[in-house]
């Protein structure tokens, strides 16, 4: 099977703190991997490393065939990250935000509309500026932006946070569809019941290191 993420003894630091202390991880194409672990374990850092946003200090990291030591730009174009922050422009409307993020990868208007439809934003909320949305509505918008980006590797940091029951179902459907279309997904989440049902594999992160676990 094709390997999408290959980390071997990867180390990353923030300031002087080693947030990742030698991580080993293999993810194959089409998998949905769930990262789980205590607060401060390094889940967010791991996702940021894979997205090419956190510099690799030691070890080996190859994502989508690009070496993170040398070719981070190659990775970034093909990866989609949803972080703790939403990355939205507060003064622009929902549609404008999704359209902007879609067009950074050349998504068509139809694709953007489809993404908004997916997250239930196509109707009343489409023309509302983001600063007038509730927390969950913002999270939905950020997800729609991610969907519109059509990434090959999706990195999701607590995507459920703030979503209502309905939104969680929509998210699950979206992720399943994405993997069917050939995407690979890594999700960090504390909601074991919810995310566990979706995932194909569970990886525990503790103290900046990973351990394989059974679901």
């Amino acid at each position, binding site marked *: 099977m094709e390997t999408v993420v290959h980390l071997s003894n990867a180390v990353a630091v923030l300031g002087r703190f080693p947030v990742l202390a030698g991580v080993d991880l293999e993810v194959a194409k089409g998998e949905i991997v769930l990262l789980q672990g205590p607060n401060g374990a390094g889940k967010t850092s791991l996702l940021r490393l894979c997205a090419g946003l956190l510099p690799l200090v030691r070890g080996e990291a190859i994502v989508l065939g690009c070496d993170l030591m040398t070719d981070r730009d190659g990775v970034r174009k093909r990866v989609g990250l949803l972080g703790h*922050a939403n990355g939205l422009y507060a003064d622009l409307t929902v549609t404008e935000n999704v359209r902007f993020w879609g067009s950074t990868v050349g998504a068509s208007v139809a694709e953007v509309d489809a993404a908004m439809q997916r997250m239930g934003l196509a109707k009343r909320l489409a023309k509302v500026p983001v600063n007038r949305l509730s927390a969950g509505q913002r999270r939905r918008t950020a997800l729609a932006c991610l969907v519109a980006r059509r990434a090959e590797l999706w990195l999701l940091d607590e995507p459920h946070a703030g979503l209502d029951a309905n939104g969680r179902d929509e998210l699950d459907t979206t992720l399943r569809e994405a993997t069917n279309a050939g995407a690979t997904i890594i999700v960090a989440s504390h909601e074991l019941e919810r995310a566990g049902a979706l995932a194909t594999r569970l990886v525990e992160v503790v103290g900046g290191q990973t351990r394989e676990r059974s679901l």
Partner: protein
Amino acid sequence: MLRVARLIAAKDLRIELRSRVVTNQVLPFAAIVMVMFAFAFNTDSVVQKVAPGLVWLATLFSLLTLVQRSFAVETADGATDALRGAGVDPAGIFLGKAIALAAQLAVLELVLLFTAVVLYSAEFRLSGLVLLVTTFVAATCGLALVGTLYGGLAAGVRGRETLLPLLLLPVVAPVLIGATRATEAALGTGGAVVADGWSWVGLLTVFVALFGVGGTLAFGPLIEE
């Protein structure tokens, strides 16, 4: 690259249209700065003599605010991360943000010039008009380019508010001086003649070319973590 630049510029200008921060905040601020200047040096003759310098000084202060705003928009909800993470061409981001900044600066400068004319009874000469316009275009582009470059550098880091004026002001000083002298020549302040101005414009143009090329190439590594 140009597609990305257009995208980013359009987005920045649209945000400004919605939030009206420049129109409602920076403009009155700059205008009030001019009024305060005039009041602080209440002797009329002094004010009139330094009017071109004041216009550019006020522009400079506003530039700091504008650059900060331009990147605050990105960092507020982690959009810089998202931009970097999206692998958007950095040269495109640079040009796009510089274009949007230049547009906002241009509006600002027009208002300041108008204020100067009204408040300080600065005077226009038709013969100096071409020089004046050229100076303004060149200086605006120069300021926008430098502002974007250093703004991007300062945006990610922790002491960003510290860094920006510290980096920006010394570099911009030549622009300030060149533009002031050229404007004086165009307006004939203190008996300056128009011909004097063009050499300053030459300096400004070199500056623009330098930072245009340099910025396009260097922006990528600069905004890298």
